[in-house]
Every structure is written in structure tokens, then in C-alpha cells.
């Protein structure tokens, strides 16, 4: 299989602070990758560099073999790279259904050859909202949702862009055990449909049950990359998490 996403020697500085230091990462199409690391280790910065929210000073990000340097975030989304935000960022003045319409109109419809009719868009909205269990709240505003529902909306909006690669940035923080299990099951279902997924998470139970491969970032460096069971037994990973 070919690599869907190739991150090559990506570095990012904020002033004198090195947030990412020569990260290399390769994700194969169809894979489920977990990305973990202590707070401040650069996970979200890496996501931002991959998705074009931030520009990396060094290195390159290739998606389907095409270098993405210089492409803005919306162009990357249109090429099939979607993300959810760590803190939900819904469009506050738009209803839940309209929140879903934004990526449908601007990403799916903007792709060459795709033109969804108004009724097709409605159907897609309803389908996605049913998938995450928000169908009954379609007409409500995001401020009427609970934190959990907000996270589901965030995920659904990323899915609406019909991505090839989905990066879920801590989409389970604050959720109960059953809800975590729900979302993990949902992500695995999506993966089976052919979406490659990178999951960033602190909840180890979720990460371990989800990931086929685990990548560990510490202080902007990648310190481990491999099978989940082997990685968490890695002494260096233990040191980073538990201290010594």
C-alpha cells in the first residue's frame, strides 16, 4: 500500500520555543493511527501544520504524493484532509443542520465533477446527523447543545467534508465511558468504510482499543512509533509519561 500522508522532517517554532522538531510520520491509506503525548508535546501543532492552519518553517507534508506546502487550509480540506478541533468550534449563529451544510457546499460540492442537488445535501445532512445521534437537534443552535453533543457536531462536520484522512483532535475529552465507546465504535465503522483516521487522545483505553499503530510525541520530538502494545511498554515512553 502507498502512503496517504507523509510528514517529512516538519519543524515549527514559536519565537524561541521549538514546538515541533523534525517530525517524520507516514500514514498508509486505511490505517488507524493513535497519536499521544503529554500536554504541550506538540500534538495539536502537528495537526495544525498538516492541515494548513499553521505553516511549518521546515520540512514538507505530502498528501497522496502531492506536496501541500503553501496550500491554504481550505484547499487541503478539499483534497480530502479533514480535522475536528480540540475545543469544539461550531458556527454559533447557524443551526446544527446548517453547520453541516457548510462543508457539504464548500468542500464536497467544490470538488471537480461533484454537484449535489439541494435535496441530496439535505439527505447527507440528515444521514450524518443520524450517524452521530444529533438528528433530533438539527434545527437547534449550537449553544443549546451539551458539551458532548458539541463534540459530536464537531466530528460530524469534519465527516461532512467526505475526507480520505480524518484527524480527530481529542474528540472524546469529557465524555463518559459509554460515550467514549460509542465514538470509538463510530470511528472504527468509518475506518471500515475506507477513511484513514489519526486519533489524538488522552484517554488511553480509547486509544488502545482504536489504534493499529501508536505514535508518541514528547517535547516536539517523535519518540516512539509502532504497535500499541509494544509502544506503551517502551521504557522511554514510560519515562515521559510517568517520570522517573
Amino acid at each position, binding site marked *: 500500500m502507498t502512503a496517504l500522508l507523509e510528514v517529512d522532517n516538519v519543524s515549527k517554532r514559536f519565537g524561541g520555543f521549538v514546538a515541533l522538531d523534525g517530525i517524520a510520520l507516514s500514514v498508509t491509506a486505511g490505517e488507524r493511527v493513535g497519536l499521544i503525548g503529554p500536554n504541550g508535546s506538540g500534538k495539536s501543532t502537528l495537526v495544525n501544520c498538516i492541515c494548513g492552519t499553521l505553516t511549518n518553517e521546515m520540512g514538507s507534508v505530502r498528501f497522496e504524493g502531492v506536496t501541500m506546502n503553501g496550500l491554504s487550509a*481550505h484547499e487541503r480540506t478539499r483534497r480530502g484532509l479533514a480535522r475536528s478541533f480540540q475545543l469544539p468550534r461550531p458556527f454559533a449563529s*447557524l443551526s446544527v443542520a446548517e453547520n453541516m451544510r457548510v462543508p457539504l*457546499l464548500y468542500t464536497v460540492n467544490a470538488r471537480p465533477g461533484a454537484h449535489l442537488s439541494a435535496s441530496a445535501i439535505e439527505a447527507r445532512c440528515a444521514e450524518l446527523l443520524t450517524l452521530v445521534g444529533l438528528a433530533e437537534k438539527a434545527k437547534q443552535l449550537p449553544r443549546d447543545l451539551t458539551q458532548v453533543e458539541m463534540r459530536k457536531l464537531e466530528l460530524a462536520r469534519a465527516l461532512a467534508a467526505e475526507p480520505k484522512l480524518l484527524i480527530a483532535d481529542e474528540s472524546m475529552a469529557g465524555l463518559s465511558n459509554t460515550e467514549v465507546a460509542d465514538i470509538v465504535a463510530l470511528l472504527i465503522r468509518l475506518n471500515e468504510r475506507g477513511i484513514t483516521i489519526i486519533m489524538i487522545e488522552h484517554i488511553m483505553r480509547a486509544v488502545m482499543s482504536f489504534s493499529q499503530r501508536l505514535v508518541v510525541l514528547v517535547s516536539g520530538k517523535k519518540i516512539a512509533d509502532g504497535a500499541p502494545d509494544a509502544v506503551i511498554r517502551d521504557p522511554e515512553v514510560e519515562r515521559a509519561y510517568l517520570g522517573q
Partner: protein
Amino acid sequence: MRTLPFFLVCLAVAAAVFVLARLVGNDYVFFAGYVVLQYIVLATAWNILGGYTGYVNFGSAAFFALGAYTSVFLHKFYPLPIPVLIVVGAIISGIVGLGMGYLTLRLRGAFFAIATLALAVVLQTLVTNWSYVGGARGAYVIRPNEIEPIGPYIQYLFLLMLALAVIALTVARGIERSWLGLGFAAIRDDELAAEASGVPTLRLKLVATAISGALMGVAGAPFPYYIGYLQPTSAFALDYAVNSIAMPMIGGTTSWIGPLIGAILLGTLQQVATVTISSSVNLLIVGLLIVDCVIIAPNGILGLIQGKRTAREIVTDPAVFALLFVVNVIPIYFLHQEALAARPLEIIFWAVLVFLALARGRIIGLSWLWALPVGGAAISVVPGPFWLWLLSALTLAICLGCGLLMRPPAPATRSGTP
């Protein structure tokens, strides 16, 4: 309703307005109406950028003046019919809007607002020093007195502005209901998330500034013919910048109706106030009304109607009630001294007082409190000796006292043992 039927309905309403204005049989109606219509176009144009995408433009006057001075330039260069001037004004202002957007739209919030203000200053300086269009002296634009088939020229100008208002409203509503409007709203709510959802934010913002700028230029293009003598200070007047922000804010910024309501309300009020009372009190009235609107309806009149915030919440604090009450009594005092001509304006403030008393009365359990300002208003209308006036003031004082000093009744204590 789709765009075409809406456009036709607007045209029908506009035609009715024109016929009504002609029935009045006084050309002053057209002079005053022209200004209100001009503000409808300006407020609608401002709202496309400021309301839909959330970028506050303080430079409305610059685009307005750009349209006006394009007309002056062409008038001197080669006289053309006004509709052509309007198109040229739209193109020039649209291009300048696009350029300004390209330079400044990377800035957010207050920085963008300052940049637009700077544009107005730069353009004003340029025009003031450009003698071909009159420079600081200003330029005369002699308009014919009559025009075939319509008659007086002002009626022709009024009709043009009416058509422009219809076009502006149709454009704004069309944008609002299209994929463009959805993208604008996404930008307003969260630019980062919009980008991540595939919205080309910079391109959409440029579209918004270009359309908004073009419509403002359109509003300004016939202005030299209306005013007859155009100088930089009148074309770049602060009124345009302030009104084109205040009107959508008062009406509500998320829909095309908001700027329309705001412009009709505030524009008409300003016209009535200018004619009926001294101009300094005119400013006081408009200012106080804006204060009222900001406190009572922060989401505009539309927000108040849609019940985004219930009116009762506003006066739960007795101090806020008292402040608002006093703020609305002040103009009544001044207006009363202006005698009968100012009565229509007085009604607005009496209505606000009644509304406040009603809301406060419900909270503190005095459901009759609203009757006091109603009584006061009734007494104040009666022509009579001075003590009647005092009686009216007394009712207001009692109402204020009750609202300020009475506390909401304590919730009924439950009987029985805990």
C-alpha cells in the same frame, strides 16, 4: 420566496411609494425621501460586509464619496446620464473595495476597522487636493430643473434611488439565502473552522468588500445632482460612516430586513427632527435613541422580535430601569418645549417609558405600573395651565420611584416542615 418574485414585490412596493409621494403633492417629500432611501442603500451595503461576515467597516463615507466624486469627474469630463454614472461609480468603488480588502482583510477586529478609517482619511486628502474635481472649494453640479416624462428633477432622482434601494435589498437577500451567505456566516462565526470546512475565507471576504463597496458607491453616485454643490467635507461627512453602522445595528445585522428597518426608522426620525426641532436637539434625540436600542435590543429590533433576549431581563436591575427611564424622560422635556411640531417624536419616548414600566411592573408585581406613563402622556397633551404639566411630571416621578424602590415579592414560602 425566490429572488425574482421578491424583486417584483419590491418593485411593486417601490412603485406604490412613488405614487404615494406624488399624491402628497409636495416636492419636499422627495427631498427627504431621497435621503432615507440613500441610507437604505448605504446600510444594506454596510451590512453585507459588517453584518454577514462580521468585518466592521468605518470607511463607508469613503466609498460613498468615491461614487459621488466619480460622478463629479465624469460630469466635468463628459456629461453622461445618471444611470451610467451609477454603473461607473459602482465599478470604481467595487474595485477600490477589492483593493482595500486585499490589503486589509488579513487584519481582524479593531485593526480592520482602523484600516478602513484610514482609507477614508487618505481619500479625503486626495480629493481635497485635486483641483479638477473642485478640491477644497467644492464643485458645482448644475442639474436641470425638469426632466421629461417625470417632471421635476428631484422626482427623477428619488425614482433612481428607489430603484437602487430595490436592487440593494434584492442583492443582500439573494446573498443571504445562497451558498455565499452561508460562507459569510461561517466566516463571521469562526474563521478558522470555516477554513477547515473548506470555505475559501479570503476570497469570500474579498467578494463581500467588493459588493459592499460597489453598493456604497452606487448610493453616492447621484448625490452631486441631489446636493448641487459637492465639497469634500459633505461627501466624506461622518454622518455616512456613523449612520451606515448605526442603522443595521439598530435594525439587526443578520438579515436584510435589519438595515431596512434601521434606515427607515433612524433616517425618517432624523429627517423629521431636522425639520421640526433645532438641529442640536436633533442630535440628542438620535443619540439617546441609539442608547435605548443598544441596551434594550443589543441584537437589533430583529433580535427583540425573535426573542433572542427577553425584554424582562433588561429591567431586573432597578438601577438599569431607573437609568433608562431618566434617559427617556430627558428628550420628552426638551421636545415638549418645541411645541406641537415635535409631538410625533415625543410619542416614541413615551412608548419606551410605557414599555419599561410594563416590564418592571411585571417583575415587582405591580401590574398597573404602565398606567402611570400612559396617564402622564395623556395629561401632557391637554393644553392647559402649568400645573397640568407638573401633574404629568409627578406621574413619571411616582413610576420611577416605584420601579426603583420596590423589590420583587419574595417567593411564597412552602408550608409544612422541611
